[in-house]
């Protein structure tokens, strides 16, 4: 698969490294070149400095022929803007969007993006961990 990843934080870099190891064609975008330090040495995909909300950058990243787009940059709204662009303007079939605000994640999930909220998942995990058996 051809995958474009917006945001090279811990999640973006980890996902990029993993997808590349799985033989997918990966391009990672980040506005800060320093973020690419998080990619493991074995990462053999492309890295591009620029914003995923910028059409020129998206085209350079190969959005027009991409099969998948993942937005895991820091801002919810930027992630949503870029994702809706990828989906509505460039016809990318699979679009996954990180949205920290759980309600916003729910709404944009209903509107057609595959959203996930790390906040919601985090609350669940923390709660489960609190009441897991075996504490001391």
């Amino acid at each position: 698969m051809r995958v474009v990843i917006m945001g090279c934080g811990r999640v973006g870099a980890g996902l990029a490294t993993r997808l590349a190891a799985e033989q997918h064609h990966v391009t990672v975008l980040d506005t800060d070149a320093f973020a690419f330090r998080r990619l493991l040495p074995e990462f053999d995909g492309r890295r591009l400095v620029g914003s995923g909300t910028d059409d020129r950058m998206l085209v350079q990243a190969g959005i027009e022929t991409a099969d998948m787009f993942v937005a895991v940059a820091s801002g919810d709204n930027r992630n949503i803007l870029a994702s809706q662009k990828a989906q509505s303007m460039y016809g990318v079939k699979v679009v996954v969007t990180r949205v920290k605000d759980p309600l916003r994640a729910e709404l944009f999930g209903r509107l057609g993006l595959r959203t996930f909220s790390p906040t919601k998942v985090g609350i669940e995990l923390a709660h489960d961990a609190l009441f897991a058996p075996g504490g001391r």
Partner: protein
Amino acid sequence: MYIIVVGGGNVGYGLALELQQLPDYEVTIVELSGSRASALRDELGEMVVHGDGSEIAFLEGVGARRAELLIAVTADDGANLVTAQVARHWFKIPRVITRVNDPRNEALFRKLGVDSIVSASDAVMAQIEATMPEHTLVPLMALESAGLRVVSMRVQAGSTAEGKALRDLTLPTGVLITIVITPDGALAPDGSTVLRHGDEIIAVIPREADETLRAMVTGAHPDDGRS
């Protein structure tokens, strides 16, 4: 009528000043930056609220459910796009107006059905065009959902339209001449209304009627008048 304005920059501030004057309007201005919000609050008072206008829980708190109009005018297109969709799809606010800062985002906003779009660059162009003496056709407002625009035109000397009654003009399909402003004041025209040099016409037109109308009021060939 309750209105929420998201974004307390120059545009939001200007809007607030205008809307404040109107007796039957209740307005809330939402500003993300704390320091900007408190500066605005000093001047405008309680109507200014510090918060994130793209956050559903926050909008709920400022009464988005009873708002009849939401205007998203921050300098951040992502925030405006998200706010507009939240307003429309979550709170079902009947009318939503959105500002587009980067003209390249306009197509996306349209495609996502954000119904009324104000593009800063379009607005500036319209202002520039309006100040030119030969101003011919100035877009005043877009009615996105219907694909129509409200425009102002001025009848030029020697044009096809000058001296003609409306019924004698072959107007493009879908064009609605709504108001004619003459030196004697504004009137609701009918077929017998004769257009004079200098008259201003306010009309609702489909996008594609632009060039034909421009030619009609200037007398220029359709291909000359392209802006």
